[in-house]
């Protein structure tokens, strides 16, 4: 019997399955695979290839010319003097600002919530259902809800502030920096439950004995957190950070619905601008180039997160 490599184990190709599966013909496998892979090729592989291809041309939907221009679209974007590139980087900056303000909160606040919930108290399950609930309403409902709550004249938030004697004329949805507070706040309210639920599952996997041992060693609550909890949920923390950053970078609905990308276009995110350039502006080539740049940035950032955790893991 040949030595099993790690890869073999990972793909489940142990001896027994090899014996069992030699009995199936390639046609059987094809039958199982075809439905998925036909759609996968048409709707994932082809689009990725064609987005790259389109980005290398000057292509305005419906107009006769579609010349090959090589990296010109990318050059124009990186040079940053034309309007499109200025607007693109503005929207990337908006995405960056939003990610910078919201990602740390979206990583930390759910963790605090999960820690709170990791104790036993009556109604815990009901409470978990309550704080997860906003997530199941889609961005359309959430956007509408917060557009209403934060309306300058008619929204309850300003009304409440006024009743408490605080300034009640803040234009949450049409001015900065109030607009960022609005977007970040609404997003946290909407998705805190999602990350919290993931943390909770991870927290429950941390062995109680470790906490007990730390307490015996004289560690207080904070030390226990840093020496037991955080390392214990390390993999999940990495996962949550990565998906949170990606989700923030993909933000579109909140700024489209709550602030309507105002003031001016200051809260227009990268996705918003890419969609507008391509679908309303008909500029297929440039919007493809922009989406490629955003995609590569995301892959790089995810890679950095993974590397950072790898390094931290190695230091242990």
């Amino acid at each position: 019997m040949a030595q099993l490599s790690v890869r073999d184990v990972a793909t489940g190709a142990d001896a027994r399955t090899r014996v069992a599966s030699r009995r199936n013909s390639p046609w059987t496998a094809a039958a199982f695979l075809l439905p998925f892979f036909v759609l996968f090729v048409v709707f994932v592989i082809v689009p990725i290839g064609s987005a790259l291809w389109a980005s290398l041309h000057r292509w305005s939907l419906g107009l006769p010319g579609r010349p090959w221009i090589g990296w010109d679209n990318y050059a124009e974007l990186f040079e940053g003097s034309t309007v499109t590139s200025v607007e693109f980087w503005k929207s990337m900056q908006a995405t960056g600002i939003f990610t910078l303000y919201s990602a740390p909160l979206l990583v930390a606040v759910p963790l605090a919530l999960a820690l709170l919930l990791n104790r036993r108290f009556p109604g815990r399950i009901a409470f978990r259902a309550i704080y997860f609930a906003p997530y199941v309403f889609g961005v359309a409902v959430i956007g509408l809800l917060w557009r209403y709550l934060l309306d300058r004249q008619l929204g309850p938030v300003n009304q409440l502030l006024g009743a408490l004697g605080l300034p009640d004329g803040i234009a949450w949805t049409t001015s900065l920096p109030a607009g960022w507070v609005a977007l970040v706040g609404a997003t946290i309210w909407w998705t805190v439950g999602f990350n919290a639920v993931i943390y909770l599952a991870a927290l429950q996997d941390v062995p109680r004995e470790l906490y007990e041992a730390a307490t015996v060693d004289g560690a207080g609550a904070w030390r226990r957190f840093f020496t037991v909890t955080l390392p214990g949920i390390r993999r999940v923390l990495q996962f949550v950070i990565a998906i949170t950053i990606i989700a923030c970078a993909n933000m579109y609905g909140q700024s489209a619905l709550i602030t309507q990308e105002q003031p001016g276009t200051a809260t227009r995110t990268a996705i918003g601008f890419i969609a507008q350039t391509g679908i309303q502006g008909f500029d297929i080539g440039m919007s493809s180039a922009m989406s490629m740049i955003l995609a590569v940035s995301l892959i790089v950032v995810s890679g950095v997160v993974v590397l950072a955790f790898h390094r931290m893991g190695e230091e242990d």
Partner: protein
Amino acid sequence: MARLLRPRRVALALTVLALTAVFVTPLLLMISTSFKPTAEANSLDFTLLPREPGLDAYREILGNERLPVLRWLGNSFLVAAAHSALVVTISTTAAYALARLDFPFKRTLFAVVLATMFVPGVILLIPHFLIVNGLGWLNSYASLVVPSAAGAFGVVFLRQLFLGISPAIEEAARIDGANAFQVFLRIMVPLAAPAIATLSVLSFLSSWNDFLWPVFVLFSTDMLTLPAGLAQLQGEYATRFDLLTAGAVIASVPVLIVYIVAQRYIIEGVSQGGVKG
């Protein structure tokens, strides 16, 4: 009794109550405003609960022919159900093959699928638009159900699950003469039922809540799904908050029902995905 009143417990209880209020109040406000008459909803004089609660806003929304909210509800349901069924069907079969069958390029195919999990969806937006246009699917149910069905998540998730099932059961069935299809349908699927249920609920929800794509690919009012319809409602009745909240409430009720019923699957699916991911 003294134990219950320990300061720590009280602090915890107060925190939980405060947080509950934070999560619940916005939704209550939304519901409350939807029952206010137009003048009250638009007045600068704010009231928590409606002074004259009524169904005016609902009547107006439901009776509005140009904004058929109920039709949108139906569209959303049809599309989400079809999408969910499609995702489950193709993901389960492909995942089984990748986990249990043998064929050339198996590792490569899986690697390609896994790699696309890191590709941000924004790249696919405009090509999907052009492809859907070329297939003549603009403004159709197909354009909502099909393009996003071949996602990597379902296949990766279910393959992991199938790999975890002991091969002994399958081997026994094979010895008894069962072919791959029978093994798949009679053994693997039932064993994977909870995960499949989770995947179907998550796909249903993701399709139901999809906002960006339907807004781009649908153009007739009749065909809109709820999120796109709500956006149109918001565009048309910018500050008629009584109408807008009524629309939001109508859109939320089905989701709430699904949530109350399938809450466990959803929450556990999300947390499992995170822990194993």
